[in-house]
């Protein structure tokens, strides 16, 4: 879901009137008045977005597209006006306690995470962001964190206007720290770009493993950093491919080619072919030795017994013959 689309939907939602037939969801006054204790920072919104995609999207759909599941009552599109009419406290109460097909996230999501989701949902509506910031719930928190409402449009505007956005990877060998940098070349020198969602990942078979935290955006120097876990397996040559790129969900908005660098980090993989072990379940030629020898022993025992019996018969025959001659 790109911000552009959200903005578009926001415009649209001003004209669309949603028809509702569901019963009112009454929230106790005390809960309704609850203020969001988590500041609406870019970090919080990013976290909230990830949480939304994991826990809410399957029913509520993409915000602004009104493509939620056809349940009764229908899951409300969080970008819709009807949804945004809720106070933070109301949304918090509804996420916490659930109703009907809406599960209660009381036990599943920590309070902090629920507030992150609310921050994300609010970021879908610029008007609300403005309202929220005008009366911050926790002034100590909001004071030091930059506001998304003021930061994002400017960063985005510069991106649209100026030369091509690029990504680069840097490494600190000792601490195994990876830096990804977003920058533009402007007049022969590099200018860092902040507020670009960048993820650092390690190449894997199905999907790449993200090393940076979910929803991370570049800081004022254009950097995102991540630490490479020492115990992560590398390939059989002892190498890993490290990738810096724009997360899939944001690729519509930021079209930047991903950067890949191969490093000799991680634990070298020594693949074990379990077909090489002797076992009862393995192929015939890999049967356990005890089985091989006990089988061969049994066959040999039978043959030896036969031979012994034959030799006895032969002896009897010889004795009989000699006694007849005598």
């Amino acid at each position, binding site marked *: 879901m790109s911000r552009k689309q959200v903005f578009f939907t926001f415009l649209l939602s001003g004209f669309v009137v949603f028809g509702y037939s569901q019963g009112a969801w009454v929230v106790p006054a005390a809960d309704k008045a609850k203020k969001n204790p988590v500041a609406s920072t870019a970090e919080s919104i990013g976290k909230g977005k990830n949480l939304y995609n994991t826990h809410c999207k399957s029913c509520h759909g993409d915000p602004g597209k009104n493509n939620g599941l056809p349940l009764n009552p229908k899951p409300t599109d969080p970008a819709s006006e009807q949804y945004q009419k809720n106070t933070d406290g109301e949304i918090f109460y509804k996420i916490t306690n659930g109703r009907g097909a809406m599960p209660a996230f009381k036990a599943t999501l920590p309070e902090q995470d629920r507030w992150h989701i609310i921050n994300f949902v609010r970021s879908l509506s610029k008007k609300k962001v403005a309202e929220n910031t005008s009366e911050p719930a926790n002034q100590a928190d909001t004071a030091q964190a930059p506001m998304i409402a003021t930061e994002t449009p400017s960063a985005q505007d510069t991106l649209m206007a100026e030369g091509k956005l690029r990504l680069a990877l840097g490494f600190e060998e000792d601490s195994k720290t990876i830096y990804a940098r977003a920058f533009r070349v402007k007049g022969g020198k590099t200018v860092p770009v902040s507020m670009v969602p960048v993820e650092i990942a390690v190449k*894997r078979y199905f999907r790449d493993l993200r090393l940076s935290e979910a929803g991370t955006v570049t800081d004022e120097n254009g950097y995102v950093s991540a630490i490479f876990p020492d115990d992560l397996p590398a390939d059989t040559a002892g190498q890993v491919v490290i990738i810096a790129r724009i997360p899939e969900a944001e690729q519509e908005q930021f079209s930047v080619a991903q950067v890949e660098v191969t490093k000799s980090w991680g634990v070298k993989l020594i693949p074990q072919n379990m077909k090489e072990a002797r076992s009862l379940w393995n192929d015939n030629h890999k049967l356990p030795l005890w089985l091989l020898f006990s089988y061969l022993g049994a066959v040999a025992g039978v043959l030896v017994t036969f031979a012994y019996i034959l030799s006895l018969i032969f002896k009897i025959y010889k004795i009989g013959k000699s006694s007849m001659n005598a």
Partner: protein
Amino acid sequence: MEENNPIIESGDEGRRNFLKKLGIFAGVGVAAAAGAVYVASDYEEKKNPEGKKVRVLTADGQLVEVPESELQKIEQEELDIEDELQRRGREGIAGKSWVMVIDLAKCRNARMCIAACQAAHQLRPEQYHINTLVMKDSEHSAPYYMPKPCYHCDNPPCVKVCPVNATFKRQDGIVLIDNLRCIGCRFCVAACPYSARIFNWFEPRDSEKYKDQPYDVELNVPQKKGTISKCLFSADRLRKGELPYCVSSCPNGVYWFGDMNEDVVVNGTTKEAARFSQLIKDNGGYTYLEELGTKPRVYYLPPKNRIFPAPGEEQVSSHS
């Protein structure tokens, strides 16, 4: 005389050789002529006086018309395809060690995994490679849904008992069945402690429709009456770098699938990648009936902090 003999001998030899060569030439000539006659007659036979044309679908999906006489059977090629499918199916993917993690807290019995699996493997509705069971371990314990595929054990009792090597374990950990070898003795069904295996008692679904399809051991289709079938970890999809049918069709984020050698599993719904070891450690992952020593490859995360109602609770919650 003694000295002349070799000359006479060699002359004799020469004559013999000449006759031999003549014989060979004559033989080849006759064979060639016979071949030519045969080919010509064959051609005449195949030539259709009405010039009847047949519509065929090419490999790239185009419908073309071909004179019936030009049609040739490709049985041999089909056999080659089957051989290749068998070879790679037996071998497995080197350097991989597949593992599945099932989060019991997320399952709400949507049964999309079952539908996707049955569609892919040509199963009848009552045949399951994967099924969601309603579990209640004891009188006072909480009920939960448990998807149960084949556990692809690292010490598989089913493979041990097969008398014809029809079922086998590959280097990437998957236990498969070769239905061209299976004799239907059902020893493996008896040996499996998880009841993961099913027997095709009746004609499989759409068996008429698929009877000409080359048998793919990694997909176990076409299913064959009188043989065994079971979950295959979607071995055909893994080869293409795709998640198994059940994993990618789950709407609730129940399944994680990946390669233990990479220590990464991917959630089929959110497509989020996570460290396998971390996931198991943080959530108290376990394998089912591990005390049997079967070493299953499917891990469960306990049904803790459910977000969906447990079995039997749906009615209560929908009226709250």
